[in-house]
């Protein structure tokens, strides 16, 4: 492990989004501050997802590849728009995540830390979680392990309800799919993802219930409704214009 201060992001008061890739929705990130589990609302969970990549890979190579190709291992429909330079401390990435009803939840992450053995993302206000997601790889007696570990609280009461009503399982499926995709890249046939979940703190932090004001799902939904209304209005305008043109042509004949 390189013990270099530059492995850490530099402190900044607000997140700054760089160039926005075509097709990415940039909402709920610019100007937001980041949240640790301390600033979250719901119960605190530590969940660890592990997959065995076998003995024919190098842990440092796993992390290098994971950083370089990070978005490619995500499940279809879930988009990570990171900087072209890849995962590096201080970089801000946009996330566009599929929600029910075809709406895209727009949020992001800060790359808090990155070295040759691991990297950690930290979530902004409004994200489903307040906390950290750490990706690492290390040798074990059974082979090289690739691991994703989350230390999180649901950001607000609405997200906490969503987690209880299937959100946790959805989260498990997400990281299961991601680690299996990573394992497939390294030639592992039929990879198995193990999950360990620990409730670190059963108490909810009601003083943080006001986080709902920053809820990215609500804001993304409102944005989508706004776009839908604008599209409907444009379609109605175009239909009216077509109808009027047809009427003029008919009277001219």
């Amino acid at each position: 492990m390189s013990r270099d201060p530059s492995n850490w992001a530099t402190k900044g008061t607000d997140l700054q989004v760089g160039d926005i890739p075509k097709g990415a929705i940039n909402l709920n990130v610019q100007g937001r501050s980041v949240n640790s589990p301390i600033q979250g609302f719901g119960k605190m969970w530590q969940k660890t997802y592990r997959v065995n990549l076998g003995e024919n890979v190098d842990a440092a190579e796993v992390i290098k590849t994971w950083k370089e190709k990070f978005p490619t291992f995500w499940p279809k429909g879930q988009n990570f728009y990171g900087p072209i330079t890849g995962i590096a401390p201080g970089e801000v990435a946009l996330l566009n995540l599929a929600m029910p009803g075809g709406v895209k939840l727009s949020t992001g992450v800060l790359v808090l830390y990155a070295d040759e053995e691991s990297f950690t993302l930290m979530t902004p206000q409004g994200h489903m979680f307040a906390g950290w997601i750490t990706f690492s790889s290390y040798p074990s007696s059974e082979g090289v392990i690739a691991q994703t570990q989350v230390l999180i609280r649901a950001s607000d009461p609405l997200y906490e309800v969503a987690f209880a009503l299937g959100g946790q399982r959805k989260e498990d499926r997400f990281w299961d799919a991601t680690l299996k995709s990573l394992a497939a890249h390294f030639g592992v046939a039929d990879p198995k993802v193990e999950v360990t979940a620990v409730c670190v703190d059963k108490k909810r932090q009601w003083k943080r219930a006001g986080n709902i004001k920053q809820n990215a799902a609500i804001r993304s939904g409102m944005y989508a409704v706004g776009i839908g209304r604008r599209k409907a209005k444009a379609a109605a305008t175009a239909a009216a214009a077509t109808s009027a043109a047809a009427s003029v042509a008919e009277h001219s004949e």
Partner: protein
Amino acid sequence: MSGQTLTMDVRRSGAAGIIDIKGDVTASSEQTLMEAYTEASNEGAKTIVLNFEGLDYMNSSGIGLLVTLLVRAQRQGQQVSAFGLTNHYRQIFELTRLDDAITIHDNEESALA
């Protein structure tokens, strides 16, 4: 992981349990840290003081362990404070917003006041 071996010595000062951290704090530090916390909490310590003067390096997994320690301390009604952080790690505590819950002091005297 290569790095400096971690040791944690525990002292008492009144109602405070002081944990002197020397070396690297990483994911592999969990057992050492929690054992030190248990010892520091003996005999009803009301404050846990983390002495980082001997810290060589901490990565993001190490920061995560501090959150876990914080939860345990809060469950016991204990305050957690820290001193001996370099400017770099003070900034890390601010960036990770750990300073919302862990009070940072300039020195031991201030932490125990």
